[in-house]
């Protein structure tokens, strides 16, 4: 029979022989690794959820021309009152974004006034594809606009008594602009008082080709890394002002950091207590088996060979504990995220490796100490049961 297979069979028999203790060890290993896994998955899931929130709440960096002022305190993205309008060069911003290496979603905006029935009508040029992707909370009644079409803020539509399907004629610096209203939008924010049209069309109407008044960025970063992203972008764009937008997500981030710390502490406590429990059980086992160890040496096993058998047995336990811990831990993570955070946990396969590593580490760490002391004994003394 194959040596390795025979050894494996022998180890299973050894584990089965001490069934109660094997089950106890497995339970401790599975619990420790499952908790470590579960807490890790939960914090990853939370992190991802907060990243989603960041997207949901909109931009976290806003680039505006140097002269414009961003009123952060009002909570919205207020353009302020611009006495002398200044603009950002679109190509300049694109270049800065690519050289600074910031990964982000972005939306480009140009704000200006068009004339409608002898009054100024605040208009914003945007890319509707970007808007649909990045501002999912926009509720458009009617249809999203095609070329030559516009969406009207809900309040504005009411005030002007316009509805989807209506045709209007606006005037810009470059002449009349006929537009069809394809739909109305209500967000509960300043969007309700604006007219939205395609960015190039507004740029042309205002004679501001290639000019922007605002770029909103959704950088997938938070805290310090967001700050440094803002700084590096600022260096690339000396003529602009890069502002960090404070949002609700920041609070969640602070909370997440605290929850993570708590989880790490809990994990550490679990690992230490599980470790000492495993060490205790393992050392009893190894001491009980000192005669067996002595016998193996007496019939010709070298110290390394015998040690490897016992390590393999511990690894077998650790491996089984790790697999069980992963399954259990994923379950716990799902339970926690569902009941406590009302979110769904991620399914993270590589967490299996984490669970396995934790369990193996505990099992081997727990047995190394007692093993080394027993293996230093000569076979005669081991056989006597010393």
């Amino acid at each position, binding site marked *: 029979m194959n040596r390795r297979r025979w050894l494996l069979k022998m180890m299973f028999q050894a584990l089965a022989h001490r069934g109660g203790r094997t089950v106890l060890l497995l339970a401790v290993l599975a619990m420790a690794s499952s908790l470590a896994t579960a807490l890790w998955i939960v914090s990853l899931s939370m992190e991802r959820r907060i990243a989603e929130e960041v997207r949901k709440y909109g931009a976290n960096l806003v680039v505006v021309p140097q002269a414009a002022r961003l009123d952060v305190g009002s909570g919205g993205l207020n353009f302020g009152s611009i006495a002398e309008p200044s603009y950002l060069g679109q190509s300049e911003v694109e270049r800065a974004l690519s050289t600074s290496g910031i990964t982000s979603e972005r939306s480009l905006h140009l704000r200006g006034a068009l004339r409608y029935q002898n009054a100024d009508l605040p208009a914003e040029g945007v890319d509707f594809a970007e808007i649909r992707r990045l501002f999912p909370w926009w509720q458009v009644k009617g249809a999203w606009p095609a070329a030559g079409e516009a969406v009207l803020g809900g309040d504005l539509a009411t005030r002007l008594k316009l509805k989807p399907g209506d045709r209007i004629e606006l005037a810009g610096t470059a002449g009349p602009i006929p537009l069809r209203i394809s739909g109305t939008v209500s967000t509960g924010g300043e969007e309700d008082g604006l007219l939205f049209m395609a960015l190039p069309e507004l740029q042309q109407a205002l004679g501001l080709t290639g000019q922007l008044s605002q770029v909103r960025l959704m950088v997938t970063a938070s805290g310090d890394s967001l700050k440094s992203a803002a700084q590096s972008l600022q260096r690339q764009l000396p003529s602009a002002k890069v502002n960090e937008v404070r949002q609700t997500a920041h609070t969640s981030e602070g909370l997440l950091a605290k929850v993570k710390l708590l989880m790490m502490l809990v994990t550490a406590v679990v690992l230490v207590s599980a470790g000492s429990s495993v060490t205790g059980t393992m050392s009893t086992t190894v001491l009980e088996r000192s005669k067996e160890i002595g016998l193996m040496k007496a019939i*010709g096993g070298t110290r390394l060979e015998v040690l490897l058998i016992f390590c393999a047995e511990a690894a077998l336990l650790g491996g089984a504990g790790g697999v069980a811990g992963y399954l259990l831990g994923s379950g716990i993570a799902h339970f926690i995220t569902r009941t406590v955070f009302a979110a769904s946990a991620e399914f993270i396969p590589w967490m299996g490796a984490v669970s396995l590593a934790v369990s193996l580490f505990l099992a081997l760490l727990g047995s190394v100490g007692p093993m080394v002391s027993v293996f230093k004994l000569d076979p005669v003394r081991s056989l006597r049961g010393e």
Partner: protein
Amino acid sequence: MAVATIETSGLTRSYGEICALKPIDLSVPEGEWLSVMGHSGSGKSTLMNLVGGLDRPTAGALVVGGQDLSTLTEDGLARFRREYVGIIFQQHHLVPYLSALENVMLSQYFHSVPDEAEARHALERVGLGHRLKNRPGELSGGEQQRVCIARAIINSPKLLLGDEPTGNLDHKSTLMVMELLKELRAEERFTVVMVTHNEEVAAWGDRTIYLTDGVLVREERTRS
């Protein structure tokens, strides 16, 4: 005279202050059956452990099977044991969770490769063909000792050591075990060193040496 299997001169083993074995000169020719007698604490086990490469001498020369054991490393001694020596213990020292067959195969595992057919044959030779799957706890003392013998001879050792192998057995089992060892030696032609308290058991050997407080005080040839 045949080649010496065991050759010692000035062989000494002390545990700190206690000198368990005073300098001993001993020569055991190949194929001889040597019985070792002496009262408790006289150093019989100490001598046997040295000869079997389980322990190291404090001083003196110890050559077994042409190997100078004092020059071997720890692992070298382990290899010497598995290649050259078969050991039978008074306490059997069978692995409790392995069957009789697997206990024999464990010895094969450390020697080379577990071979079930060979192990079964060894157990059949010691009359345990019907108890292959039983664990030590399910066997009588005499049966356990026979498993121990099967395990000791499975790798065809040149030297068979027994430290009171019949110490725990009744008269009938003792006879059975001695009979068996005699048969096996006739077939395998290994050298035997056997520690015993029992004059009758010692008489199965070719020669008996007597130890007192670590000193070889007397030796006797039991048959010509």
